[in-house]
């Protein structure tokens, strides 16, 4: 008899919370480095030894405040940050192979305040300045929250039904349950930020309206859908981000194939493969045109899916989705070989003539990146490699219009924590802009 798979069980948050005792022991293990490398490595520069020692001393509200002062999305980042590449990767205790579990301690502290409905910040005295934020993802919410703490009036326009951006829709529940992202949204709301959902620039929100009604604008629109594979049978291919979204919003209705192929080798591809495997696919194969060495997924994500039983087919590029009577039956691929480095600095994959083969499958999911932000073209903003171009103050080529998050990430890897830092620094830049007109009183 086939076992019934319950999505709420197989997709529930993977890491359990630390127990009080685990947290205390771990907090005491932290050396309390001075000018700590973990803080340097953190894109938002959370004072990590400080928040950890506050856990050790039993000052959990102070600990959470320390985290959230630097990173308003601290509960999300505690779960989704690539800590091996950032704080934990820089921990001096790597000398002994046992860095402090910074991410999980951060979750312990932030869960403490969210679990008790405690607010650690309050809105600043009103300045009369109005800011529009376009997009309620991590960058937008952070920018909005920081501005509200400084007393500015902020309205966030979000095209989707729920705020939170990728935290809500794009990170698998194993890493971050929806409720965590929504709790952060509510915290930002309680700072006085108005969040208007299902409002999309160019659809039911005009740019003129935004420019006329606000003193500054922050664009945190993220990126677009997954690009087309541009192969015959394209219409049968599922969008990886929509696949993940369905697993979070409506997992019972998500139809997962028996043999699933995921195209791409980034973190979204790993997450799609995990979802497929956990929701009952017998065989999940990741197809990537380069090799293990070039894949962009973090090491820990790659290790995780291998442990889940996901298989890999490197040096293979899809050329056609095969179907019979509207049902996918296989993915035809061609073998690749690595040539000279391309523009990205990685060896360019080249097809090996006559090497086509078919991977039998009944579902194909693509996760090969995201389209560039179309807002740039719409507003006529200067771009860099298709991303919105900003200066050191996160200001775009339009004065008073700022941008941050994935939509400006022309360099480096897109991540929540980078978006949070953008949002925070942009908020400070906007505040400095206002301070000039508000006079010395508002000068920080």
């Amino acid at each position, binding site marked *: 008899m086939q076992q019934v798979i319950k999505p709420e069980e197989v997709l529930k948050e993977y890491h359990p919370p630390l127990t009080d005792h685990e947290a*205390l*022991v771990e907090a*005491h*293990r932290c*050396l*309390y*480095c*001075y*000018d*700590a*490398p*973990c803080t*340097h*490595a*953190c*894109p938002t*520069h959370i004072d990590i030894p400080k928040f950890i020692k506050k856990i*050790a001393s039993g000052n959990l509200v102070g600990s959470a405040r320390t985290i959230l002062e630097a990173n308003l999305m601290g509960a999300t980042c505690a779960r989704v940050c690539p800590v*091996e*590449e*950032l*704080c934990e*990767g*820089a921990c*001096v*205790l790597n*000398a002994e192979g046992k860095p402090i579990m910074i991410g999980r301690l951060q979750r312990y502290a932030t869960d403490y305040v969210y679990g008790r409905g405690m607010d650690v910040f309050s809105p600043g005295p009103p300045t009369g300045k109005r800011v529009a934020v376009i997009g309620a993802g991590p960058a937008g919410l952070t920018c909005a929250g920081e501005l509200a703490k400084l007393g500015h009036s902020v309205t966030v326009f979000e095209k989707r039904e729920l705020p939170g951006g990728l935290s809500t829709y794009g990170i698998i529940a194993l890493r971050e349950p929806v409720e965590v992202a929504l709790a952060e949204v509510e915290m930002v709301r309680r700072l006085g930020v108005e969040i208007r959902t299902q409002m999309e620039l160019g659809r039911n929100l005009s740019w003129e309206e935004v420019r006329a009604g606000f003193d500054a604008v922050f664009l945190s629109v993220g990126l677009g859908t997954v690009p087309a594979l541009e192969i015959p049978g394209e219409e049968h291919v599922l969008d990886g981000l929509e696949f993940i979204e369905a697993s979070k919003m409506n997992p019972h209705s998500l139809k997962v194939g028996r043999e699933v192929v995921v195209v791409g080798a980034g973190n979204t591809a790993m997450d799609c493969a995990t979802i497929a495997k956990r929701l009952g696919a017998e065989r999940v194969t990741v197809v990537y045109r380069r090799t293990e060495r070039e894949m962009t997924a973090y090491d820990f994500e790659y290790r995780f899916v291998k442990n889940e039983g996901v298989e890999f087919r490197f040096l293979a590029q899809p050329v056609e989705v095969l179907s019979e009577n509207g049902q996918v039956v296989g993915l035809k691929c061609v073998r690749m070989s690595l040539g000279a480095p391309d523009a990205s600095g990685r060896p360019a994959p080249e097809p090996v003539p006559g090497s086509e083969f078919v991977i039998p499958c009944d579902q194909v999911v693509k996760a090969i990146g995201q389209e560039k932000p179309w807002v740039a073209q719409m507003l006529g903003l200067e771009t860099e490699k298709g991303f919105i171009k900003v200066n050191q103050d996160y200001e775009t080529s339009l004065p008073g219009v700022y941008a941050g998050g994935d939509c400006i990430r022309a360099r480096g890897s897109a991540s929540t924590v*980078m978006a949070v*830092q953008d949002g925070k*620094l942009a908020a400070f830049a906007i505040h400095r802009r206002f301070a000039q007109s508000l006079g010395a009183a508002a000068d920080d």
Partner: protein
Amino acid sequence: MADLSINFAGIKSPNPFWLASAPPTNSAAQVHRAFEAGWGGAVWKTIGAPVLNVSNRYGAWHYGSQRMLAINNVELISDRPLEVNLKEIRDVKRHWPDRALIVSAMVESKPEAWRDIVMRIEDTGADGIELNYGCPHGMSERGMGSAVGQVPSYCQMITSWVTEVAKIPVIVKLTPNVASVVPPARAALAAGANGLSLINTINSIIGVDLDTFELIPNIGGKGGHGGYAGPAVKPIALNLLSSLGVDEEVKRYGVPISGMGGITTWRDAAEFLLLGATSLQVCTAVMHYGFRIIEDLVDGLNAWMDAKGFKTIAEVVGKSLHRISDFNDFDLSFRAVARINPDKCIKCNLCYVACNDSAHQCIDLVDAQGQVVPPYRYDAHANGKHEAVSTRPQPVVREEDCVGCRLCHNVCPVEGCIEMVEVPSGRASVTWRELMQTRPEVTEDWAAMERYRKEVGIEIH
């Protein structure tokens, strides 16, 4: 294998480890099990005057992840009937003739009460008597325990009542709740004590509950001072032990000392032996982990003695006492400086902040180009482990400015990373005492001191 057996004023035991007079030696059942585990001896929980106990009795001090770095207690002497104790002592001694069984006693300060208890203890066949002049709580309020130990004349009087009648060795247990343990020790010896033991517990209040504002432990809404013991008291015990070991009058009696106060591992034990203890008593570590800890106390001490070439305990006892000195006799020209081994350094910067905030500002952060850089010099856009690790500066001691305070060595979390290296000071050896004799003006007048410093080349930044 070294010979761990000892002969303490005629009391023999196969190893120097005795259970101290305390809760672990409350009953025959416990002491039987302790001897089965391998303990060399036991000092029976104090018997004597009738008492009633309270709860809660024990408070504990936890530090970091370490539970019970110290314990404090308001438990009294044995609350079991005297006859039961005496019968059980007799029974234990008959079963374990090769182990040391000492009985701790405390009665009202009357000669007949002391004579009576001594006779009854001797009837059990016990090997010795320990006079409890130490307990700082409960009994002291009734004129016993530390109320005796704190007054040398009482100490001498009562000890003499006991030694006049006792046929078995008499050990006097001293309280640390005094300015100096030497006067009561001398008094006990003058009255004929055959041995000394120290330290008993230290007066303490363990803490206050931050939710209820009650004292810890809470005794029906009240609380008060209790006896403090455990690993945290070891340095105090070592100091008091050595103060007896270097006292000429105490030394003249040539009696053995039983050392205790925080002994938890064989390492602690070895230090007590080196500073003059012949037998070693243990309580808190047993209360924390049970009788089984005797295995490594014996095994570890044995291994250390073998490694150092000691064949008997007697060869170890007091071996470091000749190094006990005081400031007057330290060599003012001895110079040590800190040196950080960059291969071992994990760049936690604890040495840097300790030196910079609390010592003498002589550790620099040096970048890969050899430039001294300030802390926190990265900008808000810098991130990632590679950036953080690859640009992290190395703490380096400016040895010419290092005063050799040793704070960095103490805070460094990496064993053997910061070492104190002896360097020539270029000055002739001299002590403060010699200066007081040969150049008294230097020790009394700042101007003379300045001239002296210039003359011998001492520069204070």
